């Protein structure tokens, strides 16, 4: 196989990480909404933690992006 073709396939494979991140972000906000509906008074207090969890999970997606960029542009 051509090296440049393998590069493109590798960059595409690197985005598989998005599957896990999608599950993670959905889980965070889903749990928040179901928790907030059960106990609406406590919801504002945990929203900061929700955003923190969202940012930490989203970062995993960006690690995958960095790997894809590295495969495409660095090597």
């Amino acid at each position: 196989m051509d090296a440049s073709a393998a590069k493109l396939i590798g960059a595409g494979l690197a985005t598989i990480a998005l599957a896990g991140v999608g599950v993670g972000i959905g889980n965070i906000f889903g749990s928040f909404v179901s928790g907030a509906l059960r106990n609406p008074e406590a919801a504002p207090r945990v929203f900061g933690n929700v955003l923190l969890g969202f940012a930490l999970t989203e970062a995993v997606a960006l690690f995958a992006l960095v790997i894809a960029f590295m495969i495409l542009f660095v090597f």
Partner: protein
Amino acid sequence: MHSPMEQFEIKRLLHLNLFGIDASFTNSSTWMIIAVILATAVFVWGMRQRALVPGKLQSVAELGYEFIAGMVRDNVGDAGKKYFPFILTLFIFILFCNVLGLVPYSFTPTSHIVVTFAMAAFVFIGVTIIGFARHGLHFLSLFVPKGVPFVLLLLLVPIEIISYFIRPFSLAIRLFANMLAGHTMLKVFGGFVVMLGIIGGWAPLAFIVVFTGLELLIAFLQAYVFAILTCLYLNDAIHLSH
């Protein structure tokens, strides 16, 4: 056709060579200085009256101060008071760099891993030194989880050590990748507007408007995450919480 990566190019504005090291004044340094000047202006100019009932700008300055002071108090406790100025400076600097980067034709210093890694390494080394200074060699018990059978420790201790040393990298890459990805995506969709022209260009334009709002949130959130993780690491070093 311009590339969406062109915005991250570092240009030398003032050539400077210090003993063989390239210390040129670049557009990155310019925007860092602008961020520092603006942040200082908000705090100094905002607090100039020291009114009991704060005006608009004073409210902003007090809000930022209170926000970080509360964060340090909640996460580190009283022992963290000493390090509050450092964390406030870190937060405000990253926040201003991120937000200023959203201005068209500006430059985002935090979209370069050199800048973010310098800050992350500073935090990491500082926290390690604080830990050793406070607890001596007892600090190493951070790597040994309590109440775990010995056989499992053989597995857990290396994992703890690796996860400790990976901290500065994840801290740096998180901030840098968020800024890089967000700005690249804005520019890619900007390219779609031009390509689709006056008829079809409205859809990506509307997307850009929405996404700029999200980017503002992310700019704040990443500064917040950087500051709060610094607090958590500091808490680990001070209280050896395990």
